[in-house]
Each structure stands twice: as structure tokens, then as C-alpha cells.
């Protein structure tokens, strides 16, 4: 029989997985329930994750992923998990999608598409344009992140190579 979540993961893994993927601040109680751990266990691991910079604590004591950390984690994942050619192909796909939207709606940018929402359009059409607007804005954020990933690609990859080559070197030598 297939193992359950609690059989296959440690309490810390469950707390970390739940806490680092939150989209809004959550209490210790909430995380403890979702991760299926005792309150004390959740509190201890949440505090540890906050100390490590993965989480931030709100004024009312709730936990949420640190947005800066999340951004750089995303950038690192793009570089380490994709070939340069895959990132370039993704940029091309984003550009093609944008060209399609420009032609379909006769606009030059998401801002111009947003301006058309003030036009006298049927409700369905407004909803559709809002949906495309969200996708377009998301595509632009992806494009900007992929460009940064490509700009840093060689530097980050060489850091990994350097670590392997200099596994016996000191911090001073590596720096």
C-alpha cells in the first residue's frame, strides 16, 4: 500500500512545505493542523525557518514566506533546472503570446488593453479581456525574471563548477 504523507515525511518537512508555500499570513495553529504536528512542534520549526530567512513574522505573530527570498529562490531554480536554450525558447513563446494578444485586441501593451475595459463591451468580453490582461502581466513578470536568469546564467553555473573543482579549498580561496 502507498505510504501516507505522515509516513513519508518528517514533521519538519511538512511544516516547511506548508509554511513556505503560503499565499497569505497564517497562524501557528493553522500550520500545525495542516502539517499534522503538535502546536509546539510547528512553533519550533516556524521560528527556525524565520531565523533562517525563509519566513517573516507579521505584527500579529503570523507567518508568511519572505518575498525577497522567494524571488531569489525562483531565479536560482530557473538557472539550475533549465538549459539556456530552454529559457530562450520560453522568452520566444512569451513574445509570441504577446504578439497574438496585440493583434487580437489591436493594442500595443497590457496598459492599452486595460484601457479598453472602459469601452462599452459585453460582460463576457470584459471578463475575457481581464483574464488575458492577468496572463499578459504574468508573462511580463516571467519574461523579466528569465532575462535576469539568462544574464546571471554563466556566473551561477560557474559557481557550481567552482565548488566541485575546489571542494577542498578554503572560504578565503573561494572568495
Amino acid at each position, binding site marked *: 500500500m*502507498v*505510504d*501516507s*504523507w505522515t509516513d*513519508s*515525511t518528517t514533521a519538519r518537512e*511538512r511544516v516547511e*512545505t*506548508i509554511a*513556505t*508555500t503560503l*499565499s*497569505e*499570513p497564517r497562524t501557528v495553529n493553522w500550520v500545525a493542523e*495542516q502539517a499534522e504536528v503538535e502546536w509546539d512542534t510547528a512553533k519550533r520549526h516556524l521560528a527556525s525557518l524565520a531565523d533562517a530567512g525563509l519566513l*517573516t513574522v*507579521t*505584527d*500579529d505573530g*503570523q507567518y*508568511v*514566506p*519572505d*518575498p525577497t527570498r*522567494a*524571488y531569489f529562490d*525562483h531565479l536560482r*531554480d*530557473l538557472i539550475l*533546472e*533549465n538549459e539556456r536554450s*530552454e*529559457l530562450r525558447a*520560453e522568452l520566444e*513563446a*512569451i513574445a509570441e503570446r504577446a504578439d497574438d494578444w496585440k493583434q487580437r485586441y489591436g493594442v500595443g501593451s497590457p496598459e492599452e488593453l486595460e484601457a479598453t475595459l472602459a469601452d462599452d463591451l459585453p460582460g463576457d468580453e470584459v471578463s475575457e479581456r481581464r483574464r488575458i490582461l*492577468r496572463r499578459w*502581466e*504574468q*508573462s511580463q*513578470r*516571467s*519574461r523579466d*525574471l*528569465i532575462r535576469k536568469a539568462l544574464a546571471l546564467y554563466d556566473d551561477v553555473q560557474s559557481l557550481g563548477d567552482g565548488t566541485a573543482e575546489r571542494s577542498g579549498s578554503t572560504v578565503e580561496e573561494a572568495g
Partner: protein
Amino acid sequence: MNGDGSSYDAAEASHRALRSIQRELERHPTISTVRGFPSGAYTQVVAEVAIDRLETDATEGTLTVRWFAGETPEKKPTFSFHYSDDNGDFGWHHEPNPHVDGWGHVQARPDSTATYDYEPYAFSSDSPARVVWEMMSQLVSTLQSR
């Protein structure tokens, strides 16, 4: 981060959820490979199910997971875990559908030309990692009972 949601980014929250889903699927014993698409900011994760580890007559199966965190932190996420193989396709969806009351439902059809049957389904959580394990348990049970 001030905790009032002012820095909330639905795309980033969705991507983070799908990254978590990818990690949990990679950890699951009945999944062989997992990949997120597109690479820039996932909108879906596609996993190959290790059919040979289950008692089923299908030759290969694919699980496609979609997750959108919602426009604001207060909004419920929409997501789906949809499985398909040469014997048909079925999936658990959390999104409004005209065929069934409530957000949670199961939809299934015996082949690609048939219409879907819909049944209500209550998810026990809206946390991506927990939903993965709940869905994998449901998926394995369904495949073994077909």
C-alpha cells in the same frame, strides 16, 4: 513584508504552490517523473504515474495539476488534479462548474468521446502539499478499483 497582503502576487503564489506540488509528487512512490510548465512561472505540473507499481491494466498514465492561488489572498484557490490514460480520464477539481453544486467535484469519462459525469467532492484542505497527498491517495484507490 508588512503582512497586510499589499505585496501579494497571485502569479508568484501560484508558482510557489506548483513548485511545492512538484516537490511532493517527486517524493511520492507512485510517480516516476514530474515537470513544471512553462519554466518561467508554472501554470501546470505534469507527472507520469508509475503504472507498473499499481494493479491496473493501463499502459501509461499522466497526471496534470493546475493551481491558481486566486486574485487576492482572501479568494479561494482554483485547482485540478486530472489523470488520463488509454482507458479514459478523470480528475478532482476545485472550481465552480455548472454541472455540480459547490466548488469541489470529481469528473470522469470512459473515453475521450464520452461526456463527463460529475460528483461533488469535499477537499480536506486548500494547502497544496496536503492536497497532493490526498489526491494521490484518491488516484491510487480509483485506479486499483477500475
